[in-house]
């Protein structure tokens, strides 16, 4: 009982405050997911010569609400052969890890549920738990496509976890902290994308793989494993996975903004904005503006994610793993090394930019030419096709 005493000493107000704030986070994130669903459908529609949703509400804004209601009202089918306990708990694990990440992601200086000094460590730690949920979902649904998808997700997510963590370490070294608020404050002058463009590219690509977005949507590939771990899920269970997927996408975009794009900090300092009519000097106005600025940045990053989805085909599992281990992991280690060198010798900031860009260009070039080979391939194919055409023309003239 002695050990429990500090826990019991937590006041009633604290408990109520915790519950209320968690509920607020849940509601806020749900609204964000609704907006993301709408944005994705609309953006994809426009990319694909369609209109996207138009019928439900203004510009189809109520479409995600209609989707959600439909999903919740649908019958929740649990296959007879499934392992019921695992089948039930898997979506909970996935959603839990997705929501827990957000406990420590700040939307602005003051707007964070519980700021942790080891915030980034906490985030990467909880991101891994989601994998367990996916594997369990595949296994518990007693479906071979589910098993395949679950194992694919384990392989994929664990491989891409490494570059993500390594880049996070590099950023932590630059800011000398894992506290996200400190990291944003350190980018007041120059966002880290200018210092470490390599880091941002690696983090963004690996992040796409982390949340299973095109071109890395291998573990739930519709045309191959028919939804993978989610194949047997329906109704509310499935919508929990869906929710978690979008929250994760949002989290990756938010992390890109926080770690590399300066979070909620404006590109201009106060002096440059002096000509503007001065805002009423109320604390929450400035806070609200910075939240809006932060959200704008996040949605811009998310739009890129959707844009990529509307453009690219999907990689194969072996190409995906090769890309992770041959390109992403070395690049992320390189990011740590150059950051260390830069910090140790205390060189000027531009040296880090140069080293980072060099790594990006050199490794990018090697990847493009040697591993994926499409550039060489395209040239080679075009040359051979030209030779073939010439040969056929010659033989036709001869005959």
């Amino acid at each position, binding site marked *: 009982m002695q050990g429990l005493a500090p826990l019991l000493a937590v006041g009633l107000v604290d408990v109520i405050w915790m519950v209320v704030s968690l509920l607020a986070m849940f509601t806020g994130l749900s609204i964000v997911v609704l907006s993301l669903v709408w944005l994705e459908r609309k953006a994809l529609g426009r990319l694909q*010569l369609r209109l996207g949703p138009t019928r439900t509400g203004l510009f189809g804004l109520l479409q995600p609400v209609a989707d959600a209601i439909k999903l919740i009202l649908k019958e929740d089918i649990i296959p007879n052969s499934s392992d019921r306990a695992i089948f039930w708990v898997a979506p909970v694990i996935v959603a839990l890890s997705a929501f827990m990440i957000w406990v420590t992601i700040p939307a602005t200086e003051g707007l964070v549920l519980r700021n942790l000094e080891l915030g980034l460590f906490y985030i990467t730690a909880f991101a891994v738990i989601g994998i367990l949920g996916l594997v369990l979902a595949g296994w518990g649904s007693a479906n071979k496509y589910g098993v395949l998808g679950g194992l694919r997700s384990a392989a994929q997510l664990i491989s891409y976890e490494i570059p993500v963590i390594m880049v996070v370490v590099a950023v932590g070294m630059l800011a000398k902290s894992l506290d996200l608020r400190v990291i944003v404050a350190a980018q007041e002058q120059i966002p880290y994308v200018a210092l470490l463009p390599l880091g941002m590219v690696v983090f963004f690509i690996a992040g796409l793989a982390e949340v299973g977005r095109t071109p890395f949507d291998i573990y739930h590939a519709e*045309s191959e494993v*028919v939804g993978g771990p989610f194949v047997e899920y329906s109704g509310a269970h499935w919508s929990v996975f869906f929710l978690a997927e979008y929250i994760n996408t949002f989290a990756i975009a938010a992390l890109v903004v926080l770690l590399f794009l300066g979070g909620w900090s404006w590109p201009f300092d106060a002096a440059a904005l002096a000509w503007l009519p001065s805002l009423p000097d109320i604390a929450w106005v400035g806070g609200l503006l910075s939240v809006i600025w932060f959200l704008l940045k996040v949605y811009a990053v998310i739009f890129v994610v959707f844009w990529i989805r509307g453009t*690219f085909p999907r*990689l*194969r599992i072996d190409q995906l793993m090769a890309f992770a281990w041959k390109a992403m992991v070395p690049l992320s280690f390189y990011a740590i090394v150059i950051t260390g060198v830069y910090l140790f010798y205390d060189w000027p900031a531009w040296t880090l930019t140069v080293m980072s860009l060099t790594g990006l260009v050199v490794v990018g070039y090697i990847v493009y030419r040697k591993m994926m080979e*499409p*550039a060489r391939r395209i040239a080679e194919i075009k040359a051979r096709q030209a030779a*073939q055409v010439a040969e056929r023309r010659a033989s036709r003239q001869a005959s």
Partner: protein
Amino acid sequence: MAEIPTNLTANPPVNAEPVEMLLNMGPQHPSTHGVFRMVLWVDGEKIVDVEPHIGYLHRGSEKLCEGEQYHQVITLFDRLDYVANFNNELVYCQAVEKLMGLEVPERAEYVRVILCELNRIASHLLYVGTIGLDAGAMTPTMFAFRGRERIQSVFEAVSGARMMHNYFRIGGIKEDLPDNFEQLIAELLPLLREDVEESDRILTFNEIFLTRLKDVGTISAEEAIDFGFTGPCLRGCGIEYDVRKAQPYSIYDRFDFDIPIGLDGDCWDRHWVRVREMYESLKIIEQALEQMPGGEVVSSLGRRLIRPPAGEVYMRAENPRGEIGVHLISNGTDRPYRLKVRPPSFCNLSAIRRLLTDSWIADSVVILGSLDIVLGEVDR
């Protein structure tokens, strides 16, 4: 209650000794292009062996033909390769015409060629869309379907139906083209060329698409011939064989067009051949529109009850999917005695075991997509 058999097949494959997992793909898998079923023996993500199962769409079309009058059979041919209806109607009508020695009016021949080539483009556009889906890209489908929709609305104006047109007749076509056909096609062609170019640009040389398809599902020219490959699948192997050139039927000898051929016989080459064929079809349509004469569209014999003389005939034609053959035996009555179809999809599909063995699960989808099968034709 009868015990459910645990082994899905009577003869397990010989080279699948340590059977890791048996994966049933289809008939309701989203990328088996209809109701095709494959039983895959997989070792992790690698396919050890595959057993294809067809017949889920079997309607007994060949037998049904024996009970129908010659004109009524056309509707059955519409339903074989339901993506290329006009091409199917053409080969059947030509088989009967050959048996009867019937002369087809010039104008009818030109109309047939124009519609068939439009249908070839529509079919290949559908292929571009589905291979995009198989490789995981959603957008090419929408791009390709725009062009396909445009073609289909012209078909609707001509025949009254977007699919299953029932427009060709033995000895010609049902009725003359609508009055505004020239305007329709003049509007269609530039847009269609744009659509074809766009669906070419969005996929063909895309890096990820190329890495997914190049050196996947490779088959040598000799093997392809042994399997009875025809159409883009055979030409992808670098063999210049197109019935329109090798044994010109209808009026195809009057047009100037090329036969695109591939380099290595892999999925990407098959894709490339199909994309290039769309440009060639556009060329043929433009030439045919220039040369098209006026006049009758159906010979007077074709308007009567068809009673070909007893005998048999074999007619082949180039469908979007390959060479379609019709073997027709007549005993002098108003119904065919026997009608055998050689469907290109069926012969191309026969290599599925050879192509899928030792490939990845993800590749199986792409390979099947690159064969571009239509189950209505495979099962008949």
